[in-house]
């Protein structure tokens, strides 16, 4: 909303309140109707259209940016050795002001046939990246929301450089925000110093030795070191900085990864067409991590930011953690092939991980695969079928799901206290042992078919699978009275079944005209079969006190749970019929009363039900590659059908609360009282505010209403506070993900080729989702919180020009 629209909606809140109280049937009102008192009436405050500022916070913090990247590659070699060197540089500006990313990389690969039997391969990769983070989404719900959210929510009536420290404006701001100060997003992006650095060095050396014909022993060792740093300074001009006279924090994480592998390969052939390839290997991996976070507050001035931490008056004890985990595997595999017709692979692996409980560290994972290339059989040769291959496999795989180390152990954590102002050491038991913690395993059965027909003018692949995962590694919510809110354990069985297919059609295949069309799609259905607990469901993680996702036996994973919303009450005649919503007034949501009980009729948590499913029905992509002489044109389209998004901020953004901006659609779709009111402005002239007709009968969103009202049983705030289906949106979309047009110049001398291409990524999206991006997920890393949009960094449209020179 613009400032004028926003102020209009604030006035409308007051008109709505007045109308509802005035028209209330007898017995509903508990107090006197207060006279109309418009906040933007041209006397106390300017009239909506006379407001001095109209700031579009999104415009203020987003920008169109320019990025460039360069890479240079050399390669060469002789009979016994080959090398390649690649240097890269990337410089991207972020679409949020003051965010950027820069990276330098150097990669070198070296192969050398040292002797006839001994070969050496060495790879080195070094990278250095630095960036200014934008504090975009930080997963927090209250005061410290990231700038994406505050740009959506900050009222447009404040000036761009609005500073709540200004005493004259402070009350104005403070009253609107109930005394809470939310950072102006522009202040955050311009004042906050948030630097990240990342260094990494990867080295891997491989030696292989041919012991005899077909028998090769390979030894490999790798070291991977990376360090990431983040330094922040919140100057006194930001809310957080003001709390503490400047807040600096420095953190870093070190990771040292060691890898070794010893592998023996043996290829041989028996008789006419029996080809065997046998492999035995053992691998070992260790990860050593250290992280350090320290915080400093109360600085004499902002000048030196986080560079002079010694000047801080409050130094907090650093939070340092160390962890180590190891993975040890033994792998055996036999590949067998007969005359390019029958293929058989048998694999067996044993994996041991330190992360699991003593005596439960090892998992055994066998698998078998079989393929039959039917097209090689005599009876199909020479027909329209170029390739027909039937594939089948069955196997078991294991997962550690990236769980933290030490979760099977009891943990005694530091929890210090003070007596008489002296600090004393203290400890609490922050984790109890789980002596059963072990691998999550999945049994899987696949069947697939590859088909190429009519001289490969039609190529198809189709795969069907069935997966059953048991001993799922889950952080299960426990009753809080247990003393621990959740526990990592192996529990339950889930089932996934699905179908994937792709079709490719080469429309033209000529010397200088090529056109390939391909289409792929996939369908997956998952179901929680059994939890193995007394309860038949577990709760998803809490997001701002709401637990939106739920895991219910017999249902897809992470379904949304909430009240079902059946539109908006339009008139006073409709309200009394809603027995379960005592005190309901026009302009409020109607909720479905699912749990009917004689004692207790009102809408409450028991009326919550499944209101959505984040899992998509169908995911697809379409690809076209066209080239004509020196031109080429690539188009990539992807999309999704079905699947829901829970837009966390939606209910706030249509509430038309004074402390937030609202969606512009509320101006037309919200319930609006049919009254007009005339005010006399400062200039003595009358101004009419409000709408004669209102939106009664057509409103689909709830009414803007001042917080307090004298209606009995006014309890809407809380009902609206429960997750409800109005926040659920269909995530279906169709996106032109990339379109790229290129032209290649060829030269005879010095330069071989120059390819110039222009591409647009994320060109447009067709969707009914009103948020930023239907593909969003604020919690990408958390599979327990699928389909939640909580202010994540929006995806941007990128135009790029690429030049590729080959010498």
């Amino acid at each position, binding site marked *: 909303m613009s400032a004028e629209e926003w102020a209009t909606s604030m006035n409308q809140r007051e008109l709505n309140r007045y109308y509802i109280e005035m028209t209330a049937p007898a017995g509903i009102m508990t107090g006197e109707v207060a006279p109309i008192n418009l906040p933007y009436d041209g006397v106390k405050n300017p009239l909506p259209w006379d407001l001095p500022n109209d700031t579009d916070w999104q415009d203020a913090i987003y920008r169109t940016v320019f990025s460039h990247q360069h890479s240079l590659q050399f390669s060469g070699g002789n009979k016994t050795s080959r090398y390649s060197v690649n240097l890269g540089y990337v410089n991207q500006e972020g679409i949020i002001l003051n965010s950027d990313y820069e990276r330098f990389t150097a990669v070198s690969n070296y192969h050398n046939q040292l002797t006839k039997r001994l070969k050496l391969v060495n790879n080195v990769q070094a990278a250095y990246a630095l960036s200014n983070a934008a504090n975009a989404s930080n997963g927090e719900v209250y005061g410290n929301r990231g700038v994406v959210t505050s740009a959506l929510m900050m009222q447009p009536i404040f000036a761009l450089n609005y500073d709540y420290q200004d005493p004259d404006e402070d009350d104005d701001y403070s009253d609107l925000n109930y005394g809470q100060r939310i950072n102006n997003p522009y202040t955050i992006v311009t004042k906050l110093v948030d630097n990240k650095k990342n260094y990494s060095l990867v080295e891997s050396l491989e030696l292989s030795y041919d012991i005899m014909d077909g028998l090769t022993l390979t030894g490999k060792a790798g070291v991977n070191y990376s360090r990431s740093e983040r330094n922040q300074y919140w100057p006194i001009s930001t809310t957080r900085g003001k709390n*503490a006279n400047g807040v600096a924090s420095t953190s870093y994480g070190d990771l040292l990864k060691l890898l070794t592998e010893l592998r023996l390969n043996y290829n041989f052939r028996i008789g006419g067409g029996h080809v065997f390839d046998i492999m035995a290997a053992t691998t070992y991996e260790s990860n050593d991590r250290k992280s350090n976070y320290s915080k400093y507050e109360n600085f004499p001035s902002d000048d030196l930011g986080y560079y002079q931490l010694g000047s801080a008056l409050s130094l907090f004890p650093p939070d340092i953690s160390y962890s180590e985990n190891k993975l040890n595997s033994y792998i055996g595999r036999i590949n067998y092939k007969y005359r390019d017709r029958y293929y058989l692979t048998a694999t067996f692996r044993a994996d041991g991980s330190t992360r699991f409980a003593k005596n439960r560290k090892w998992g055994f994972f066998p698998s078998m695969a079989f393929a039959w290339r039917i097209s090689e059989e005599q009876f199909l040769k020479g027909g329209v079928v170029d390739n027909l291959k039937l594939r089948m496999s069955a196997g078991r795989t294991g997962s550690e799901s990236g769980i933290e180390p030490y979760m099977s152990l009891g943990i005694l954590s530091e929890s210090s206290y003070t007596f008489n102002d002296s600090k004393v050491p203290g400890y609490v038991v922050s984790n109890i042992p789980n002596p059963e913690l072990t691998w999550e395993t999945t049994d899987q059965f696949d069947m697939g078919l590859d088909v190429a027909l009519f001289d490969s003018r039609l190529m198809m692949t189709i795969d069907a699978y069935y997966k059953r995962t048991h001993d799922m590694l889950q952080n299960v919510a426990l009753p809080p009275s247990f003393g621990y809110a959740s526990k990592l354990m192996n529990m339950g069985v889930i089932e996934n079944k699905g179908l994937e297919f792709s079709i490719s059609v080469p429309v033209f295949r000529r010397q200088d005209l090529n056109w390939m069309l391909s289409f792929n799609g996939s369908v997956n259905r998952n179901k929680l079969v059994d939890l193995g607990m007394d309860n038949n469901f577990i709760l998803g993680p809490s997001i701002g006190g709401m637990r939106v996702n739920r895991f219910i036996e017999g249902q897809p994973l992470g379904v949304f749970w909430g009240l079902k919303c059946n539109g908006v009450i339009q008139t006073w005649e409709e309200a009394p019929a809603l027995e379960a919503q005592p005190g309901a007034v026009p302009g409020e949501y109607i909720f479905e009363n699912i749990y009917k009980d004689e004692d207790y009729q009102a809408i409450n948590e028991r009326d919550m039900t499944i209101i959505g499913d984040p899992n998509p029905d169908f995911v697809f992509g379409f690809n076209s590659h066209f080239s004509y002489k020196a031109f080429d044109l690539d188009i990539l389209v992807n999309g999704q059908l079905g699947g829901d998004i829970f837009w966390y901020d939606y209910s706030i953004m249509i509430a038309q609360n004074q402390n937030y901006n609202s969606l512009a659609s509320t101006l037309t779709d919200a319930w609006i009282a049919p009254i007009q009111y005339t005010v006399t402005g400062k200039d003595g002239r009358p101004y009419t505010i409000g709408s004669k007709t209102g939106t009664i009968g057509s409103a689909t969103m709830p009414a803007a209403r001042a917080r307090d009202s004298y209606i009995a049983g006014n309890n809407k705030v809380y009902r609206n506070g429960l997750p409800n289906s109005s926040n659920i949106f269909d995530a279906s979309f169709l996106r032109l993900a990339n379109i790229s047009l290129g032209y290649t110049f060829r030269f005879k001398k010095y330069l071989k080729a120059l390819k110039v291409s222009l591409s647009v990524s994320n060109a447009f999206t067709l969707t009914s989702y009103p948020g930023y991006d239907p593909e969003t997920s604020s919690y990408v890393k958390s599979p327990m919180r699928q389909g939640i949009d909580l202010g994540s960094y929006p995806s941007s449209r990128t135009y790029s020009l690429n030049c590729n020179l080959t010498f």
Partner: protein
Amino acid sequence: MKCRLLIIAAAFALSGCNLDEHPIDFKDPDQFYKNDSELQYATNGVYATLRNNAYYRQLFPLACDGYIDMLQTSNTLFMPFQNTSSSSGFAQHSTLTSMWKTLYYTINQANILIEKSEQAPSGVTESLRRRVIAEAKFIRALTYFNLVRAWDEVPLRLTPSYDFVHPEAPLASIPDLYKAIIDDLKYCEDHLWNRGEIRDGITNDIGRATVIAAKMLLGKVYLHMASSARSSDGIRNKAYKDHFDPNTYYQLCLNKLQEVVESEDFGLEEQWKDIWTPKNNGTSKEMIFSVQFAPIAGQGSNYFLMFIPKNCTYNAPGTFGAYGLPPQFVKYYSQHPNYRFSPESTDKRITEGLLLKYVDKTALDANGEMLSVSYVRNGNTFRYQYDAGGSKLPATNTVLRIAKWLDPDVTTAEMSGLDWPVLRAAEVYLMLAEAKVELSGNPADGFEDYNRVRGRCSDDLLDEEELSNYEGTDDMARFREAIIRERIFEFYLEGYRFFDTKRLGAMQAAAERFIAGGAPASSKKKDQPYHYYWPISQDEIEANSAIGSQKEGY
């Protein structure tokens, strides 16, 4: 060839590694609790759980005061405690769920400490082992007492939680909960040490639970049982009426509190303002038990920030400065000459405990100097500023800000050494007065103890004449009203209000006055039986199959 194969085989065999985990940045609980120091460290950790934000650091006392009529805030943290008759959303509200979780976190940590101390090897000093167990039992009893007062029936867990596959526990009855609380406190009476006592070469640090803390808490428990049973209408506080005889428990309370008063560790601070001096309140005898904070990074409290006005030159940021006494509450309790939340009051608890004259930050006195609240010392006059002549009385719509938590030594958040008073000596006298009067039926029997508290701050003492001015059908009812008022003035915003109105049957009247005074109409009326307890956290109900359904009314 053979040799080569052997080497390969050996290489494979040796490539395995030890997969045991050897953490280096935390200890194994099974290897701890082995000597005197470790037992004390583990005890300190349990005390530290009281400092959790959802417990005494902020939410629990404020929710108790805010639930009735004593906390003005627009902060969403307390919305369902304060607003509307609807129950929906209350059980899921973040403040309620985090308090529930945090109080039980403390319980479990206390349970662990008790079990581990009992199992500690014989090398530990026996008197210390018993003291540590008693300290854990004190914290457990205090926390169960908070739970049973706020929620009525709750799960009773007296052993550490290990079996996470079967984490259920049913609701325990109110008599069972009180039995557990009283058993713990009786153990504490025998095994806690006195203030600062040195036994077997070990010091009982100031701030640890002491014998009189246990005795006072036990007296307070008895009084809560007795008065709840006495005031019960047969629906509200029914379990108390059914199981506890008021006179028995008034008598137990009286006996126990008399032991407290006779203790050497007992003492009333002479000057009320000295209770609130950060340097003093850790050592004052007035603080029979307090949650300790220190002006050390990571160890400080924040109370001073919550109640001061915004725009103080002090950086009162964000949600701070958000709390105060609501105007409707102030209006009602300013009507009586002896009780005035206004500058006309001569009561030091008002003149020194409230920011009555605050107007804005540019106020200057006649000499052009900025003013500070009168008792702020050490020359630090630029931090809190108030207007000069006291000419501006607080308007009825003004939120009254609180000065008793002011900490002039602090410039940043979370760095105050102000302790949170859990048990204060003043309450002993008010409880004694109440128990004596309830037992004898004669209000005059309570005047002496009662006036020890009021007399510290005011020259107007309670007498027959004043008593006759209070609302009530008889002298006993009027005396109870005087008790409630005195508790308001002595303990405002220390977290007493919910439990006082609940045990004295005064909740509905308080809420009615509050609403009649012009509180938002959405304020909770507190006229339903279920208002006497809070709903159980929805997370608990859904994950604890032994509970089944939410409490009646919610």
